[in-house]
């Protein structure tokens, strides 16, 4: 599979990563090398195989739980915002989103 510089820039945009030109060029080479080893996987016949999400599902059904929708955590806003880059009056600050 041949990746193009346009692919790299499209993926970087989806991943919200700003790449320098030399970084993009390096990633193009490295990802192309990586997808070479992926090719063998694409040739495997997987007709009728169910994808495995929780590994223990190999031997027994595993139900993913949801807990009841109840407030169970104490309000600890100060501790939770201690490592935030920008906070004012208990609110997270972000650049203007709506004009």
């Amino acid at each position, binding site marked *: 599979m041949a990746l193009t510089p346009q692919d790299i820039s499209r993926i970087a945009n*989806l991943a919200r990563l700003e790449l320098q030109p030399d970084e993009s060029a390096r990633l193009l080479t490295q990802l192309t090398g*990586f997808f070479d080893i*992926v090719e063998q*996987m694409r040739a495997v016949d997987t007709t009728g195989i169910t*994808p495995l999400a929780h590994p*223990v599902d190999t031997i027994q059904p595993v139900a993913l739980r949801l807990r009841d929708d109840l407030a169970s955590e104490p309000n600890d806003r100060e501790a939770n915002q201690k490592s935030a*880059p920008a906070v004012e009056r208990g609110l997270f600050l972000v650049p203007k989103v709506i004009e």
Partner: protein
Amino acid sequence: MSNTTSAALHDLTVRALARQLQQRQVSAVEVAQHFLDRAQAHQALGAYVAIDAQATLAQAQAADARLAAGTAGPLEGVPLAHKDIFATRQFPTTAGSRMLAGYQSPFDATVVSRLADAGVVTLGKLSCDEFAMGSANENVAVPAVGSDAPTPVRNPWDTQRVPGGSSGGSAVAVAARLAPAATGTDTGGSIRQPASFCGITGIKPTYGRASRYGMVAFASSLDQAGPMARTAEDCALLLSHICGPDADRDSTSLDLPAEDFTRSLDTPLAGLRIGVPKEFFSDGVAPDVRATVDNALKEYQKLGATLVDISLPRTELSIPVYYIIAPAEASSNLSRFDGVKFGHRAKDYADLVDMYKKTRAEGFGDEVKRRIMIGTYVLSHGYYDAYYLQAQKIRRMIADDFQQAFQQCDVIAGPVAPTVAWKLGEHGSDPVADYLADIFTLPASLAGLPGMSVPAGFGAGGMPVGLQLIGNYFQEAKLLNAAHQLQQATDWHQRAPQGY
């Protein structure tokens, strides 16, 4: 301190330390101080990324008080250090990333609080590859204690070599006697491979046994916590406290009661059937590793076990399958790092999207960016079925191969890695070289099976070689029994690197 001198404290196992502490032959404060001193004396290894002597000694004092009051937990006063991927209230949590430099978690990971409940005292946080992505502990973006700049961790058996990864700091701390034990996490081999490279014992339990709550997420369907120590018996003791259901906080946590994994350590191995997969003994395995592993298997035969030839035909496929699934899940998990609620934020930006892009460009290292790119690509419109879904289907085939194999054997044995630890910088800028070296740990990770590394002797340059043992689901006690019996018959696990 009647029966011990402080010089010998760091040679004691977790079990022996726990006993001496319970018998009040030594205090928790003395033990903690001894390991803090050693951590400082050997900080050139780069094992620790956070130490706070005051916090540790306060925990030790509280442990001594409980020992005096008769309210001590089973591991009261035993010091242990955590891989810096576990959230801890009293120490910063960075996951080895610039993105989380200085981050203070408001809560403890379940694994951390479970061990604290048993009485464990925290010595500090240990270096790891950034977001646990790496096999050499060279992808580190935060400085080690005593250093100004980010430093790779060094292997105490040869400081020009890597310790393995991603739990490299954990393996080095235990091997160099800077902690009697440590926690690690294993996504594709991150407990087993550094344990092998550093000559210690480590186990990853069945996926879902240990809570992932408070473990900085890498690949959620693979990540598992486990102990790293010098002996299988210590691993069994610690694993018994680490595992247990966490229904409200980890939706993939299994509803299985906590177990005493030490219960069958002494069971004789006569009649044990050890499966030897031919794919694990291919030409790709270095001759010194192969000879060392073969020799360990002969020890098992002397103990009454029989070797059975088995096949895990999709071993090689596990590399692309893993390196599709893990980056896919990582790209999703790491989308939370956007410079808003916690972590790094870029200084200059034009608007919100620009802030995201610059924040992530500055905060993530090269390997993390690579995996985010791979993951984003394979999950993107038009590629999902061909890559991610295909990988999840082959993942089931790999897991089914193990079930076939376990019809003929009780445990599976082979090398952990194709070589001993390589030189720092040797894999250079070729990430695929690191990926290929994970070949023997990835299959059990994809299948979610318990796996461990047990010291098996020494290969080229006197570097340690680990024997990998893989068990069927929930068979941790059997694995630990097999490892313990080998350690009763051999002394490889007792060797210390020179100077430590």
